[in-house]
């Protein structure tokens, strides 16, 4: 049982700004109210390849995902840890983030891939964001009988959250742009 969703969104901001916003998306306390399902973000590892201009980072994201009461009862927790791996290629201007849950893997596997690239029609001004989400309920899990319902809920939540995520991204982009205009060297 796999469900996959793909979305595409164009940010009318340059790649440099959009990817800066992406790093700040969860950490900024201003946004904690909008993205209230995100509890914590920790950087676990990072590496810079100074020759090729590639940056790698692994972050832990703690998500509060209460779900229906029976899910909590079965899995015994309402906090979920995800691991996000990011690769930024500064030379070709691409950023790719892959997020997977590491909690509750017995029951469900969620993988989200996001790519930010300069928009082909306006590479210096716009950024295209491609997002793919796949949700897989393990067939033999205790949740299997209600899997359809759970998948639906997960999907709704993901779609809701990605809309909220875009609002946050827009706000940070605008903030970063006004900040960079304000700085005079």
């Amino acid at each position, binding site marked *: 049982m796999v469900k996959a969703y793909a979305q595409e969104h164009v940010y009318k901001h340059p790649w440099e700004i959009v990817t800066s916003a992406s*790093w700040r998306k969860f950490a900024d306390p201003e946004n904690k109210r909008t993205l209230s399902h995100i*509890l*914590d973000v*920790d*950087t676990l590892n990072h590496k810079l390849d100074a020759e090729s201009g590639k940056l790698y980072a*692994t972050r832990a994201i703690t998500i509060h995902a209460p779900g229906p009461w029976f899910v909590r009862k079965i899995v015994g927790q309402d906090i979920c840890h995800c691991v996000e791996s990011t690769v930024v290629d500064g030379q070709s201007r691409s950023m790719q983030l892959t997020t997977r849950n590491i909690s509750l893997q017995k029951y469900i596997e969620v993988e989200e891939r996001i790519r930010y690239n300069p928009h082909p029609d306006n590479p210096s001004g716009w950024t295209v964001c491609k997002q793919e989400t796949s949700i897989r309920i393990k067939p033999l899990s205790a949740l299997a009988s209600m899997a359809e319902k759970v998948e639906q809920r997960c999907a709704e939540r993901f779609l809701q959250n990605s809309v909220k995520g875009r609002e946050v991204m827009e706000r940070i982009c605008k903030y970063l742009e006004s900040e960079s205009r304000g700085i005079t060297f």
Partner: protein
Amino acid sequence: MGIIREKKPKSSSSSPSSTSPCADLRAAYHNCFNRWYSEKFVKGQWQKEECVAEWQKYRACLSEHLEDKHLSRFLEAEALDSTARADSASVVDGAETNS
């Protein structure tokens, strides 16, 4: 159930980040990183790694307090490499197959 070894906050409305022992070091590192990323990295100035002192302090705190064993293994450099490789075969030079 938080990743940081601490008493679980009673109310779900209070974020664990405000009480976590690494919160200040985490904020210092993330601020430094975000600044470096926007002001240097995206402009092609990636030759020099910055925020090293902030990272070392924050990482030391994490390795002391990170409780979740699944997360702890990501603190190891090798884990990062293999994750990054598996995730981004298209962007990483010399991508290998798992064997």
